[in-house]
């Protein structure tokens, strides 16, 4: 019987990841053997029908994204893996790469065949040094065993995979900025259209996918659509890396069926809140998502359901805000990050974020005014969707706007007394 944990079946925290032989013995590289017998277009359709949504945050149907790549014209085409994971509160791609690097390599080979791309790059966050070492060794093992290089498994298909390690800049995670970074340029985002699938790396067709997205491909190709869809609860499809950080008993990240509720993740997996702490609110999917409240705990962890509640599932790693932590201080910490990481291209982001940070500092220090709260409110529109070149500033505005909505009284109390929480 095929596994019900396709992303983590080989993962055992505390033991070294599988080498090539062990990985293959556990059923690994099966999707490569299968894909080379298929028509590339059929692979794209299979992934489209499976209903896999991108795991980088936006959730776009992966097969559909691939289908926008034009027919081969003899020139180069690229697959680029987005492993720049830097969104505060996000720690899933690191786990997948550190503990099963061959799964990503297998997913890349299968995907490149579907796209008829002969070069794949892994864009990895530079601080992920263990990932770097393990990927380099997995790549060289894959070459030694004929899964990479010329004429893979006698199919006539050639593929090279290279690892690029970055040097610390959140904006590189935005896919067009990432392409500029790979080309050796400053990582400002590019205007879309043209979309990377048509004109990306060095002006050639390029697909950028998240690490976890591509780790799903071997299972889907090897076991088929029906199996994949059966992994989710009810009408939801697949599994998803989901986790919890903050003051819970057992913080961590697990592969869960899509469709479980936030409460199940928080209580069954993360063990509930630590003794003496209560859940006040939570960010459902990283630092650039709107707060949700305890009354939302019974929502399924599904992009559509979360959107209806006024937030985004984002990276599906939830961060709990407890009752002993200041919401204004928490938002200030997030805004400080976004202000620092703005690439400086557009005014609402370059100027709006430092200004927002300044006002939050004033509130924390007890020198803020009611007028500052009004300005903060205006900032959420000024930095909101439609006013900037990329989604960094609108993302930064999300925890702020929902914080102002849910914790208005606490913002106002800061005007009178400054921060009355214990310092962390």
């Amino acid at each position, binding site marked *: 019987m095929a596994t019900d944990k396709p992303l983590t079946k080989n993962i055992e925290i505390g033991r070294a990841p599988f080498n090539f032989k062990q990985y293959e013995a556990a059923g690994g590289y099966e999707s490569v053997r299968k894909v080379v017998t298929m028509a590339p277009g059929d692979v794209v359709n299979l992934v489209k029908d499976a209903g896999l949504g991108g795991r980088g945050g936006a959730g776009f149907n992966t097969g559909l994204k691939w289908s926008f790549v034009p027919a081969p014209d003899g020139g*180069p085409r690229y697959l680029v893996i987005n492993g720049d*994971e*830097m*969104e*505060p*509160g*996000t*720690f899933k*791609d*690191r786990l997948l790469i550190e503990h099963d690097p061959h799964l990503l390599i297998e997913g890349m080979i299968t995907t490149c065949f579907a796209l008829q791309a002969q070069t794949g790059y892994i864009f990895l*966050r*530079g*601080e*992920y*040094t*263990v990932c770097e070492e393990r990927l380099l060794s997995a790549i060289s093992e894959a070459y030694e065993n004929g899964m990479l290089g010329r004429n893979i498994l006698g199919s006539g298909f050639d593929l090279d995979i*290279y690892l*690029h*390690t*970055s*040097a*610390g*800049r*959140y904006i590189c995670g935005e896919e067009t900025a990432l392409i500029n*970074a*790979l*080309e*050796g*340029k*400053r*990582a400002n985002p590019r205007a879309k259209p043209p979309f990377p699938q048509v004109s990306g790396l*060095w002006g050639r067709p390029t697909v950028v996918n998240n690490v976890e997205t591509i780790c799903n491909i071997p299972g889907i190709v090897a076991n088929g659509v029906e199996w994949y869809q059966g992994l989710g609860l009810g009408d939801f499809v697949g599994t998803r890396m989901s*986790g*919890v*950080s*903050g*003051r819970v008993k057992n*913080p*961590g*990240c697990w592969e869960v069926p899509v469709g479980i509720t936030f409460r199940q993740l928080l209580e069954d997996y993360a063990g509930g809140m630590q003794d003496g702490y209560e859940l006040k609110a939570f960010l459902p999917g990283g*630092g650039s998502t709107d707060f949700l409240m305890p009354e939302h705990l019974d929502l399924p962890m599904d992009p559509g359901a979360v959107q209806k509640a006024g937030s985004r599932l984002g990276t599906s*790693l939830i*961060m709990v*805000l*407890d009752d002993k*932590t200041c919401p204004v*201080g*928490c938002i200030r*910490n*997030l805004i400080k*990050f976004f202000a*620092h*990481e703005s690439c400086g291209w557009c005014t609402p982001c370059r100027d709006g974020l430092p200004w927002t940070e300044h006002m939050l500092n004033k509130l924390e220090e007890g020198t803020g005014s009611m007028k500052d709260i009004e300005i903060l409110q205006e900032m959420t529109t000024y930095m909101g969707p439609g006013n900037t070149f990329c989604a960094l500033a609108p993302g930064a505005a999300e925890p702020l706007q929902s914080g102002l909505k849910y914790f208005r009284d606490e913002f106002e109390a800061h005007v009178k007394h400054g921060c009355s929480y214990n*310092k*962390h």
Partner: protein
Amino acid sequence: MNNLIASTAIKARQLTEEEIHEIEHEKTHYPYTQAVGLEALKIVQKYQGWVSDESLLAVSEYLDIAPDELEGVATFFNMIFRRPVGKNVILLCDSVACWMLGCDNLKEHISNTLGVDYGETTKDGLFTLIPVPCLGACDKAPVMMVGRETYTHLSTNKIDQIIAHIRDESPVELDN
């Protein structure tokens, strides 16, 4: 900085054999040499500790990338050091999960122990302290890196041990 580089006073240094070897290897990964710019800066930094003007010019000449353009890349990335840093760079995560679990206190503790603020280097040249965004280990917060090593579940006590281990160069064998 650009003016400084443009001035005639500063000359490219000679790249070492090891540096050239590694840069040449990176070149085989990309169809255009401009793409190797950041990798080359990282290689230089690995051997020299930081990227001096002389190093930047050397890479610029070697890869035929305009100095201004390469400088634009160097200054864009947080982890390219254009000033000298200590032998061990401490990257303390100051993002939200670590903040909730007390990284501000740890920062105070490190500052008091080593006598440095963010961005500063100890007098003996052993440590530079720098804040870093979320290190992707939030479930094990608070977190920091020293060089290429990641340390999790930090406490003031654990930080003292790490610093002591690095000072006397004995291997650090801490349970993460």
